[in-house]
């Protein structure tokens, strides 16, 4: 175990995670492992059409199949109200959310749920799906963002009108929202520029690709209480969304988060939970539903395909003076793509005086997009970081030099307005410049080195932590943040550091909505930051209570010792007189009095009873994160296939609490970015059916497609956190697509303007 940095005892070490043994022995319980007495198996009937009106649904034959207990459609759901509610990370329209869980009058993508069955086993439920007769009026689908934006395009939502630059209009269109950000005077900026580059880019729909399929087990009791077990990034989000959709008070919905097999943003909004719930109420028995991999691709929440225009201008000395971008993102069947975040990230690594960014949120007949790790930022960085690379080449500058020259730092203003607090972008560029990888020339034919940078805001949101002190000096920490990337360890480490006790003495437990106060999703790179913040505060609460108990104890002892010495008896001991350091409480007014943490816990029963520290956090001071990546590739000129020779990711982590898991987040984000760059895409046929909805033809990287991923942790502590933590989970996915595009250019002389840069695409560019 690496010893801690001089400053800390626990933070910076690499202990074994507390839930590790269960996970490597197969004992950990994931949602799919749930088994309840009398449990039925549910299956969802999904639309074969990408765009159609539902005329009628006949479930009689299905209900008659032996083993089938109940069949439901949208009629079994309460009518969802067309209003906004804060249901997770941000406000969501309840009607649209509910319609995505179960189609109302129209199906808007192939795979859209139209009915569901509960039966004694999954095979029978599946057979029953084939007996449900649905009459559709098939409508022409629109599958591409540019087509959808045309006036003559088929409309998904008859009543939807465009919000144009913040103003609700009555123009019926597939464009839900056109937003704009403006800084300075771009037209003037471009006039001053010596070099201007303008390019257009297209990115394909990609999926989070978590290995565990969505699952939900629900038991809606006769007393009206609804129990849900599910693999989710946020039990409280499932609770609120299920309550809104089903018309229940939140207190009547208990959600227990099981272990989760990956989410990356894709397991935040609900898909199966309300369906399992309604099946359970109608059947009077618990119901479990597990999605197939085909359903995962066709009916959950991929990240948007997009069309992006970027124009950037620089002076001869390399200073960027003007930048414009137009981002058109596919929102899927319902409005709400992350185009806003993309607009705010696209130029964020750079201080540019004149910028205008336009964002378009456009519905198409594909599944509603959901968050995918720094949602919206990777598409945008692919465009901007390629153009920055081209500018550097035109100006004869090293691509990292142009980034160092223009790198954003504290006080520089983003296009959406706010100025940066203390940030570590330039530190990542310097670290990349000085790294042995960048210093070592890349030799050999058809080889190229590319660099790219990326930014993500990270978020704070809300968390609650309770620390119960045990009589043997250990503590049990209760939290609501589901642990996907080892956060039980990183949160327990922060509590141990503050309490001054060993990490092994903190036992973290993740509980559901009945066990802890409100806690937002594990996502937005927030868990180690915000829940860690609450753990620190809860630990301080424990120490304060101990100081109060000791003050009372020592004050009493003082009185006994100084009996009869009038003037001495006036000395009183208050909690402020009790100091704590290195695991020992001391009395400022009497050096003879001291007690260790363990000794205090052993005496709790005679010093005021149990000690429980608690804290909630909604921290401000969220530290944004930057990354700069370097990649070497070799391109086979005969086939267009890209082989990655070396990959180095430099990232500002603020303070790495558990370095192994920070490295793991970076390596995982990089490899998802590599898959996005090289082979991952949703392939649709003309009538809107996805033709590659399996892990065979939706090509995620395997062990054999990658070298080791080297990580360099730059630590520019975030002043907004007691231990300097910045979120690390999302920014690593932002640079890879652009870095690979730039490397492929240096290897082939061909600029890449489309992702994925599959062998077929690269070959077609080589043969131009």
């Amino acid at each position, binding site marked *: 175990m690496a010893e801690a940095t001089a400053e800390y005892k626990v933070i910076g070490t690499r202990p074994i995670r507390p839930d590790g043994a269960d996970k490597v022995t197969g004992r950990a319980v994931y949602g799919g492992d749930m088994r309840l007495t009398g449990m039925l198996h549910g299956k969802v009937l999904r639309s074969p059409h990408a765009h159609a009106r539902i005329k009628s649904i006949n479930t009689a034959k299905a209900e008659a199949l032996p083993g089938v207990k109940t069949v439901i459609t949208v009629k079994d759901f309460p009518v969802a109200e067309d209003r906004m509610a804060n249901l997770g990370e941000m406000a969501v329209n309840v009607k649209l959310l509910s319609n995505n869980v179960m189609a109302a009058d129209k199906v808007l993508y192939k795979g859209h749920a139209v009915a569901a069955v509960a039966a004694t086993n999954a*095979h029978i439920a*599946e*057979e029953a799906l084939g007996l449900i007769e649905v009459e559709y009026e098939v409508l022409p689908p629109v599958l591409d963002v540019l087509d959808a934006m045309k006036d003559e395009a088929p409309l998904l939502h008859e009543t939807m009108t465009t919000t144009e630059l913040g103003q609700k209009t009555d123009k019926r269109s597939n464009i839900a929202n056109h937003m704009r950000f403006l800084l300075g005077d771009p037209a003037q900026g471009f006039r001053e520029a010596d070099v201007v580059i303008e390019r257009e880019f297209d990115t394909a729909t990609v999926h989070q690709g978590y290995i565990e399929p969505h699952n939900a087990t629900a038991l809606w009791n006769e007393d009206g209480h609804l129990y849900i077990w599910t693999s989710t990034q946020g039990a409280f989000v499932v609770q609120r969304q299920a309550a809104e959709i089903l018309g229940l008070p939140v207190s009547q919905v208990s959600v227990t988060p099981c272990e989760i097999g990956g989410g990356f943003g894709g397991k935040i909004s609900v898909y199966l939970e309300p369906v399992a719930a309604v099946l359970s109420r109608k059947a009077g028995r618990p119901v479990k539903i597990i999605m197939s991999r*085909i359903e995962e691709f066709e009916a959950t929440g991929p990240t948007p395909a997009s069309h992006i225009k970027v124009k950037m201008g620089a002076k001869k000395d390399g200073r960027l003076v003007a930048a414009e971008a137009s981002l058109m993102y596919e929102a899927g069947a319902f409005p709400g793509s992350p185009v806003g975040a993309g607009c705010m990230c696209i130029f964020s690594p750079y201080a540019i005086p004149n910028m205008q960014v336009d964002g378009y949120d456009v519905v198409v007949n594909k599944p509603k997009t959901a968050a995918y790790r720094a949602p919206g930022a990777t598409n945008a960085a692919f465009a901007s970081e390629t153009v920055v690379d081209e500018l550097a080449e035109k100006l004869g500058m090293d691509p990292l030099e142009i980034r160092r020259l223009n790198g954003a730092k504290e006080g520089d203003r983003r296009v959406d307005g706010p100025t940066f607090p203390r940030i570590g972008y330039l530190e990542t560029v310097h670290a990349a410049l000085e790294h042995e990888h960048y210093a070592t020339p890349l030799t050999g034919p058809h080889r190229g080195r590319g660099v790219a940078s990326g930014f993500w805001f990270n978020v704070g949101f809300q968390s609650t932590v309770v620390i119960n002190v045990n009589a043997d000096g250990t503590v049990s920490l209760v939290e609501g943040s589901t642990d996907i990337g080892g956060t039980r360890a990183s949160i327990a480490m922060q509590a141990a550091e503050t309490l001054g006790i060993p990490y092994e003495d903190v036992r973290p437990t993740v509980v559901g909505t009945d066990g802890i106060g409100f806690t937002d999703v594990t996502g937005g790179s927030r868990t180690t930051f915000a829940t860690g913040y609450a753990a620190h505060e809860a630990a301080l609460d424990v120490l304060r209570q101990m100081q109060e108990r000791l003050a009372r104890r020592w004050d009493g002892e003082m009185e006994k010792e100084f009996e009869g010495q009038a003037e001495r008896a006036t000395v009183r001991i208050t909690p402020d007189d009790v100091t704590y350091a290195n695991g020992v409480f001391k009395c400022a007014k009497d050096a003879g009095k001291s007690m260790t943490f363990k000794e205090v816990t052993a005496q709790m029963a005679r010093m005021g009873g149990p000690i429980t520290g608690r804290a909630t956090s909604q921290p401000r001071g969220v530290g944004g994160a930057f990354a700069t990546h370097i990649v070497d590739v070799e391109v086979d000129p*005969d*086939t267009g*296939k890209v082989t990655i020779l070396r990959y180095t990711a430099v990232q500002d982590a603020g303070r790495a609490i558990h370095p192994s898991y920070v490295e793991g987040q970076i390596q995982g984000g990089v490899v998802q970015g590599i898959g996005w760059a*090289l*082979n991952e895409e949703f*392939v649709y046929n003309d009538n809107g059916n996805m*033709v*590659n909805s399996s*892990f*065979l*033809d939706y*090509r995620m*990287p*395997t062990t*054999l*497609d990658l070298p080791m991923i080297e990580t360099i942790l730059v630590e520019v502590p975030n002043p907004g956190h007691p231990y300097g933590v910045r979120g690390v989970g999302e920014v690593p996915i932002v640079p890879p697509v652009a870095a690979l595009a730039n490397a492929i250019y240096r290897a082939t002389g061909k600029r890449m303007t489309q992702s994925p840069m*599959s*062998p*077929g695409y690269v*070959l*077609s560019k080589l*043969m131009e």
Partner: protein
Amino acid sequence: MQAFDYVAARTVDEAVSLLAAKGAQARVLAGGTDLIVQLREGRRNLELVVDVKKIPDVNVLTYDPQNGLQLGAAVPCHRIYGDATIARAYPGLMDAFQLVGGTQIQGRASVGGNLCNSSPAADTTPTLIAHRATCVIASPTGRREVPVEQFCTGPGRNVLGNGEFLVALRFPAPPKNFGAHYLRFIPRNEMDIAVVGVGSSVVLGDDGATVSAARIALGAVAPTPLLVEEAAAALIGKPISDATIAQAASAAQAAARPISDMRGTIEQRRHLTGVLTRRTLQGAMARARGETLSHA
């Protein structure tokens, strides 16, 4: 998944009679890595699955320098390249047998099953053709043999008639100065279906140059794996050279009839046919001269 009956046949005759009775409603189960996926995704509905893995004849794996290789239809890939003698004798076969799906798939998938699934992009069929394999088929009227290049008749279709199933594949012993090599193009390095696959073999004369025999078989560029005689003709009778290899490659390109689908376009497949024919012939030539190729 639709319900079906399962019978583990003990003898060839038992399997034949079970299959004959049910016709298209019955199918042989060997490794199952294609069949079980098709059943689960509803692309195939059966009443009966006949597991042949207990029948001795389909588990044969014998080789001797005179009679060549006897490969039972149900022998899983890992057993074949796990046999050092056979792996050394037929490196061109191992090229394909070692890359059908991941390790887990190779623990189950059989070469016979891959052939009987008859996908145009099957990884093993081009190299079976390059090695002049013969299919030994059991049928209600006894055994019959079919050269492997005639086995597949269309996407997912082959010569097996009612009540027939593949028992084994016979390979002649590699003649002197024989060399074969199989390559496929896939976007990743593993776990993909071939965009194009090419199996080539050559037999060189004692001068180590003149080609006395050659076979080039293409995968994923026609409704069935394709033996391209014209490509062989470009090589036979002449000393092998970059020029004759290039002629063979363009002959292969001319014979290819690719389609565009999610895995590749017509132009890409036509181009790759030329590239892989060239590279497999170079590999086959090297092996014919006694060199060994580094394992990809």
